[in-house]
């Protein structure tokens, strides 16, 4: 179990502004306030490649124009400094989802979450990926 650190840097990527807003609000509600949001994978990728800052978690939508979430995931895994960065993929329910998830798993996605989701599910996914103990946090 890793030490819970609410100050970690999280990137959120979604081309739907309303969705982006809700996810950021959820994260803030969990106490995760060091969040950067991007409305396209291209913008996120530029940041990921250029910044020297540590990135602790990427949270990205799958279906976006030009670059998809999978393209972003592959680019992140292809970067020697970022290949271990935890990555959570967001998808919507649909017939192609299983195929997509298989492909994402091949590119070493850490978790995926299906839209729509509730606060508890989102929190569980993040805490699992970062190997944080939710009980620890409640106790402290």
């Amino acid at each position, binding site marked *: 179990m890793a030490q819970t650190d609410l100050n970690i840097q999280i990137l959120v990527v979604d081309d739907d502004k*309303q969705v982006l807003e809700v996810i950021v609000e959820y994260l803030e509600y969990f106490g995760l306030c060091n969040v950067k949001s991007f409305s396209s994978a291209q913008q996120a990728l530029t940041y990921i490649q250029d910044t020297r800052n540590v990135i602790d978690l990427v949270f990205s939508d799958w279906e976006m124009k030009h670059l998809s979430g999978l393209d972003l995931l592959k680019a992140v895994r292809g970067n020697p400094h970022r290949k271990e960065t935890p990555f959570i993929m967001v998808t919507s329910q649909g017939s192609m989802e299983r195929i997509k998830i298989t492909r994402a798993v091949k590119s070493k996605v850490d978790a995926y979450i299906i839209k*729509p989701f509730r606060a508890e599910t989102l929190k569980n996914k993040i805490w699992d990926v970062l190997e944080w103990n939710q009980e620890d946090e409640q106790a402290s």
Partner: protein
Amino acid sequence: MSALRQLQKNYEQTLDTSFQWNYRILVVEDQKEVAQSYTDILEHSAKVIPLQRSSRSARIESVNQDSPEKHFPFELTIVHSAAEALDAMKAAKAKKQSFAMGFIDVLLGDGMDGIELLKEMQKMDEDFYGVLVTAYHDRDVDSIHRFLGEDKVDQWDYLNKPFTNGEILQKARNYISLWNLQKESKIREKEMQELRNQVFQSERFSTVAAVARGVSHEFGNILLQIMGKAELGQMGDEAKKTHSLEKILEASIRANEILDRFNHLANPGNTEFPKESHNIHNIVSSALDLMEHQLKTQGIKICKIKSDNGKVFVNETSIMQVLTNVFINASHAMPGGGQIDLGVYDQGDFCVLKVRDYGTGIADKDLEHVFDAFYTTKGKKGTGLGLSICREIVEIEHSGHFKLYNHEVKGLVIEIQLPRKEVA
């Protein structure tokens, strides 16, 4: 793809129903010895030189020299009066084993003569062919023609006694063949119509399915907005709650609009497709709204040129289906993104919608086949039905025109001409 496979299976099954030929002949002859000669000729026609219908059947017949009638196993029913003939017709009809043709003696003793009898028989069974056989020249063919009527002109023939074996045999073969070929072509025509309906329905569903994938993504986003705002609102103060409720309402309205349009496409209400006055600009906008997600994801821009009021007399759902199909095709032609130009032009009694993409166009060798059902250049991605259905909707349902050609510079142009008023 599974829908297509099912369709092909249906197609094979439907056409597999082998058609059984009907060899039943009714002979109406009051003289017993003449009646017997029909049996001799048609059932044991050993003396007759086999007919060579084609090189292929000639070969078969030369193999089967001793049974020349293998291909025409006639089933004879012989009766001796008009009353017996009508009873035989009735019985055959009841058993659903109607006669294909008959040889009818004109002079039948008391009562009805052969010509009158044939008229009665054809009233009972309009497909029945009658060959009138007479020894006397008392009725010429014109008077028989007038009596039987204009519409029966190809349903009867005439033969003088004494007849030769060859005349009887050949007439029997001719009319048996004619009856069966016509019956078979009617059955096949009906089957083809059924298949066309199936294809039409299935394509409608596959368009719906393509749109549904986009809609489901859209709904995931909207529901996340609703659930997220509700959950976060619950945990916040009054101001936060009010803001959340507004956002939830906004998202619900968006969902409802999508649902409305989708339902309209999936359930046309009835299969008659009633036409009304519409504005093509509105139909184009609705189709684009439905496709919004797919076009956006692929990075396709829409450029509209309006030089006409867009008044058309159409079935909105059908035209929506045509447009979504055309847009799906255009987006497949530009996988890396691009642009679709939409122009609406005046052409007198017609309004023309031109849709141009900036893809690779269609190779000349494929261009002439694009309207063939099951022809596709997309490999396993396409059913090859889209364009043929589009053309059917525009040209048959709406009496319009659906044209397609490569743009002289780049991409494909689809021209849809739609009538402005009801076409009689």
